[in-house]
C-alpha cells in the first residue's frame, strides 16, 4: 500500500472507520449472544453483522487497486495479494484434510481473511525487496 498517493490516503480514510465498525460489531455480537440469547432471524442478523465490515474491507482493497494511479505500486500490491491468496488457500486446504483424517481441532473459516492479510503483508515485504 502506498499511503502517500491520493488513492492510498482514500484507502486509509475508508479502512479506519471500517475497522472501528468491525471491532464494535465483534464485541457487540459477543455481548448480544451472551446477554440476549437471541434466536431465529434476529440471531442470524447479529451473527452476520461482524462479517459485513470484513466484506467491506475486501471491497475497499479492490477500490484501492482501481484508484491507485501509480502502476508500480498497484503491481506490487496485486502480486502480494496473489501470494496471500495462494498461501491462504494452501493453508486452509491442508487444514481441511488434516481435520477430516486426523481430527485436528477444526479451524473456523472466518480465520481465512486475517490469514490472507497476514500472508499478503509478509509477501509484500518479499515482493518489495525483489524490486529494490
Amino acid at each position, binding site marked *: 500500500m502506498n499511503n502517500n498517493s491520493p488513492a492510498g490516503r482514500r484507502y486509509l480514510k475508508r479502512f479506519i472507520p471500517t475497522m472501528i465498525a468491525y471491532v464494535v460489531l465483534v464485541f457487540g455480537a459477543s455481548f448480544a449472544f451472551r446477554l440476549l440469547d437471541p434466536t431465529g432471524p434476529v440471531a442470524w442478523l447479529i451473527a452476520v453483522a461482524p462479517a459485513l465490515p470484513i466484506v467491506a474491507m475486501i471491497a475497499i482493497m479492490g477500490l484501492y487497486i482501481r484508484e491507485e494511479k501509480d502502476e508500480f505500486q498497484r503491481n506490487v500490491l496485486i502480486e502480494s495479494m496473489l501470494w496471500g491468496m495462494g498461501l491462504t488457500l494452501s493453508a486452509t486446504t491442508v487444514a481441511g484434510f488434516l481435520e477430516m483424517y486426523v481430527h485436528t481441532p477444526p479451524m473456523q473459516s472466518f480465520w481465512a481473511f486475517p490469514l490472507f492479510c497476514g500472508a499478503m503483508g509478509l509477501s509484500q515485504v518479499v515482493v518489495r525487496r525483489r*524490486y529494490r
Partner: protein
Amino acid sequence: MKNRLKVLRAERDWSQADLADRLEVSRQTVNALETGKYDPSLPLAFRIARLFGQPIEAIFDDGEA
C-alpha cells in the same frame, strides 16, 4: 529492460524524488524503473519519453535492435 533513465536524470541534476514528482509516481517506482527491475506500461513509457523529449526507443532498450 535496460534504460537510460539514470543518465537522463543525472544530466538534469534531478533526484529520484524530483523525477517521481514530475511523473506523478512514487520514488520507489522511479527506483524500480531505473534498476530495470520493473518495465513501465506503454502510457508511462510515453510520459517518460515526453518528459525527456526523446523517443521511447532512445530511452529503453529491449536488447533486440
